[in-house]
């Protein structure tokens, strides 16, 4: 447990002191969302109609953007091998890393999304659902991303490879996340989509650490 907390603390400190991580991801999110009104035009109805999908798709890309550094630094300087030989289970190591990644990127994305929703004329009653769906969905992105990042360690063109691997797996998150916001926007119940999203999150929590740990062991072999 102490090792778990130490890894979590170390990764969070690195993300905070480096600063680039969180702010680059947020910057990308804001700019990428702002591109849509420029391309599509300023009509409020059109923007409100596409807002759930645009916000969710851009949050997905923003989270993906920060994944290649998840294990890369530790892999390069050899500390990954030391971490894997520590008394901490590799699965828990992955969990600590993914949690730190989520706190540094997923949570800020969820906090920033309602603000960008205002930009896109998303009605006020859909805002809590947007926040809730991102709060449930972004941990899945961090967990799936951990699998992808661990698999791509030492690969050629790792960043593109990561996107090709993780995007298809992340499709359900996008579908039900954006679906929940759209339901809330059109006055339908958002709970079914949110519940499925929660189920997906629990599945990812069970499967992803095991797969990522297997990939990490292969990488340092």
């Amino acid at each position, binding site marked *: 447990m102490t090792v778990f907390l130490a890894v979590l603390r170390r990764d969070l400190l690195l993300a905070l002191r480096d600063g680039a991580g969180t702010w680059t991801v947020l910057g990308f999110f804001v700019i990428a969302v702002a591109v849509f009104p420029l391309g599509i035009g300023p009509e409020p109805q059109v923007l409100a109609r596409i807002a759930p999908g645009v916000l969710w798709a851009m949050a997905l890309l923003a989270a993906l953007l920060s994944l290649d550094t998840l294990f890369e630094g530790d892999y390069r300087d050899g500390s990954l091998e030391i971490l894997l030989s520590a008394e901490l289970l590799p699965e828990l190591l992955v969990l600590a890393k993914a949690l730190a990644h989520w706190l540094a990127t997923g949570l800020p994305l969820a906090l920033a999304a309602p603000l960008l929703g205002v930009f896109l004329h998303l009605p006020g009653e859909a805002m809590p659902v947007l926040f809730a769906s991102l709060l449930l969905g972004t941990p899945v992105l961090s967990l799936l991303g951990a699998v992808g990042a661990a698999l*791509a360690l030492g690969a050629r063109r790792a960043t593109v490879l990561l996107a090709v691997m993780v995007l*298809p797996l992340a499709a359900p998150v996008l579908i039900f996340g954006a679906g929940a916001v759209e339901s809330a926007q059109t006055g339908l119940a958002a709970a079914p989509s949110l519940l499925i999203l929660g189920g997906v999150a629990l599945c990812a929590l069970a499967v*992803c650490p095991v*797969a990522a740990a297997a*990939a990490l062991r*292969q990488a340092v072999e």
Partner: protein
Amino acid sequence: MVAQALKAMHDTVLRVAQPARFVALAGAWIPWVSVAALVFLAAGLVEGLALSPPDYQQGETVRIMYVHVPAAWMGLFVYALVAGLGGVGLVGGHPLAFHAARAAAPLGAAFTAVCLVTGALWGKPMWGAWWVWDARLTSMLLLLFLYFGHIALSRAFDETRRGDKAAAVLGLVGCVNLPVVKFSVDWWNTLHQPASVMKLGGPSVDPAMLWPLLLMAGAFKLGFFALWLARTRTEVVEARLRAAAGRLRAEGGAR
């Protein structure tokens, strides 16, 4: 008794799975399997294109189904096979499983692509659109993307074994999509029609159309098997050549 039978099966598989033995066996099998595939293909094409009746609603376009449905089945089957081989390779560490998975993945991707393209060709006259974003089509497209990820990952490392192992993990994780593809037409109210062959209570397809479909399915499976054997054999030979080249280089350096 069962344990003995399992042991015998295990021993047989291990004996066949020795790379040298596999190369010889594959060489003996490929011609026969290829001929069988061609016979099934000829029979299926004659049945499907000439002898079977046009559909009372779809007219002649129903014949697209004789390619589309077997391709879809193969797309799913080969993914499960690739994932299973990857799992066997990870647990048992047997190189032939990795060679076979590496050889099968592009074939599966090709079947999935054929399924999507023939589906589009059928969709345009029948639905009035090349593509709709319903659950069946979307999940099949995701299957194609999963194949792309698997193929890209398995070839992304200088050390082929690392690529094989990484792709095996990805293949197992991607298995979650298989039931989604299969049951998408039951879970959601899709434009794509529900299952009519593999379902409870037997097929609801008329025998005149079921026969050509099954013949084509046999042709696809046998054709896949022939190509898969040939590609796996190539992978095995290539790995041995690479190992021999490495040894030669090492000896040259020592001298």
